[in-house]
């Protein structure tokens, strides 16, 4: 081989080496830019002086914040996703703080992330932003630095399993006052078994309502395309009418109840905690339906369905009750655009669990303890809002949900989940407010 050939080969080898490393460099150091098209107020270190961020700015969470709480300046996507969905579950040092809404003057509570904003690719501004406000329903909006969407397949395979993490057992067991019969070792086994049983049940039940619902959503998306904020109201009504036409009132109501649980419940890593959160929403719906708590529903009226037809249906769709059914709500848009084949793993998991929880409620596999079992449990709100109806003395202090399963020898086992002990965004429940 001549020297020129050798030099050529060496040059080409070096060229490809640089090229492959540049690509790796670009991937591992890609600035995953959090783009939130709704929350664009930048505040100073003390959460004062809100100013509107330019529409063309790119917003990045400060890498030092990532390093402090996630162990790396460039964490994986699944870690960023978890951080945005429920920050305190990722790091107990991240807590909500109070700020003042600049227009209404009202104090509100939220998670504020330190951000670095690039304007016109040159100027950098530091501050803090309430990024999570528009992601409480688990809606991911992380994009590559060029603005393109991130394929859900890029999200780590770790997110695709439903196995319990053992440290969650301690959270769910609560202390001896709330769960006197719980023992950590036994409970760990029970929780894992319950989790496995749920996973198996959801996967194997080919006649489940959820599978039929998935077919419905594929058809709906095919006929209507992506739903935007602008058409979410009219498309919601079409969605509900189509559900009732296809499944009948009773099954459509079960589906809507499951979707309400999906949209309203806070996100939880632990399967049993997730089921507990969803079931608490369904319990409130049940109680309200029994007494016809609210009977005015513009949605039903607009599609020509009588509010006398099904009390649970009316309860779910009553005006101004469950925010996920409000026109233009982010949670509604997420439901309408749910694609069972393309949704990210967390969303798919939560959707499956919502339907499974609804089914478990029907077959009495879920119990509510203490005041959570009250027939007058009609209200809840997120811990980061303060509605004017919330009377502190009527709050349920120990909101415990018991999930039951049968083990291989047919014996009943259970795990108690104290919703008060869950970290981060959570619901506060009230009994006896009308």
């Amino acid at each position, binding site marked *: 081989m001549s020297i020129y050939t050798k030099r050529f080969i060496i040059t080409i080898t070096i060229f490809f080496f640089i090229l492959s490393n540049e690509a790796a460099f670009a991937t591992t150091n890609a600035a995953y830019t959090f783009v939130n098209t709704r929350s664009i107020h930048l505040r100073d270190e003390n959460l004062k002086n809100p100013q509107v961020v330019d529409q063309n700015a790119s917003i990045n969470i400060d890498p030092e914040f990532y390093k402090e709480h996630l162990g790396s300046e460039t964490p994986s996507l699944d870690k960023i996703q978890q951080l945005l969905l429920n920050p305190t579950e990722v790091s107990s040092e991240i807590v909500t703080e109070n700020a003042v809404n600049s227009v209404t003057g009202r104090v509100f509570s939220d998670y504020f992330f330190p951000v670095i904003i690039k304007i016109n690719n040159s100027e950098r501004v530091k501050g803090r932003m309430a990024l999570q406000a528009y992601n409480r329903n688990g809606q991911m909006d992380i994009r590559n630095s060029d603005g393109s969407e991130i394929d859900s397949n890029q999200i780590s395979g770790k997110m695709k399993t439903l196995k319990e993490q053992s440290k969650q057992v301690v959270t769910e067991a609560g202390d001896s006052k709330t769960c006197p019969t719980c023992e950590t070792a036994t409970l760990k086994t029970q929780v894992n078994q319950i989790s496995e049983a749920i996973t198996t049940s959801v996967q194997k039940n080919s006649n489940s309502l959820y599978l039929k619902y998935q077919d419905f959503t594929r058809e709906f998306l095919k006929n209507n395309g992506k739903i935007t904020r602008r058409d979410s109201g009219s498309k919601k009504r079409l969605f509900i009418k189509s559900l009732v036409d296809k499944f009948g009132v009773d099954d459509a109501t079960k589906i809507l109840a499951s979707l309400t649980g999906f949209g309203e419940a806070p996100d939880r890593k632990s399967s049993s905690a997730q089921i507990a959160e969803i079931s608490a929403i369904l319990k409130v719906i049940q109680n309200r339906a029994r007494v016809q708590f609210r009977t005015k529903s513009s949605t039903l009226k*607009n599609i020509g369905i009588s509010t006398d037809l099904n009390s649970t249906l009316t309860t779910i769709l009553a005006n101004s009750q469950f925010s996920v059914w409000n026109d233009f709500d982010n949670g509604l848009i997420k439901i309408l655009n749910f694609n069972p084949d393309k949704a990210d793993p967390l969303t798919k998991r939560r959707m499956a669990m919502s339907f499974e929880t609804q089914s478990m409620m029907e077959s009495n596999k879920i119990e509510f303890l203490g005041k959570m079992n009250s027939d007058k449990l009609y209200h809840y709100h997120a811990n980061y809002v303060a*509605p004017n109806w919330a009377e502190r003395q009527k709050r349920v202090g120990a909101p415990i949900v018991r999930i039951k399963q049968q083990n291989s020898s047919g014996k009943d086992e259970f795990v108690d989940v104290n919703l008060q002990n869950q970290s981060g965004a959570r619901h506060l429940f009230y009994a006896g407010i009308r």
Partner: protein
Amino acid sequence: MKLNLIFVGILYLTASFVRADEFLPSQAKIEKINCIMQKDLIIFDMISIPYTPYEENLKNIKLTECQRIQIGQQIFFTALFESLQEQEFGSSKALIFEIALFNEKEKKLNTVRSEIIDRLKLQSDLPDYNFENSLKVNWGHSKKDHKLMLRFEIAAKTLNRKKGAKVEAPHSYLIKLNKKDSWFEDVF
């Protein structure tokens, strides 16, 4: 052959029943009128009958525009207004459009449609406290059964962060007065 023709005829007749309804513009007399708030009630100029908004838990209603519409023998009053609204989960600011049918015999105004045109949740900071959506209403009738029909067009400002992003076309949908003349229902 005869059977085939009969079959085709039945198919055609069936198809004609399921054909989507069509909107045809009508000669409606539309006039802007004055309206004021009196406590929580809307008072339209020309009639001194108070109107109770259909939406509940409203506060600080700010009227934007009121109209009187006459089509044939029927008279409607409409109100477009902004309001704070206390909901179960917190406060929001809503842009609402309501249509009331004037019952001349009973001297009453009955709501026949209440539409939320836009809503902003107020428990956090927002990029903009102005509504993004606007509404255009076209009055007409159904080609199928000649019932009163409206075409709503909701137009929105672009939300995209990137410059030069496409402005979405307005979203339009139809609503039709039901058989009892008690409510405008969505047409699917």
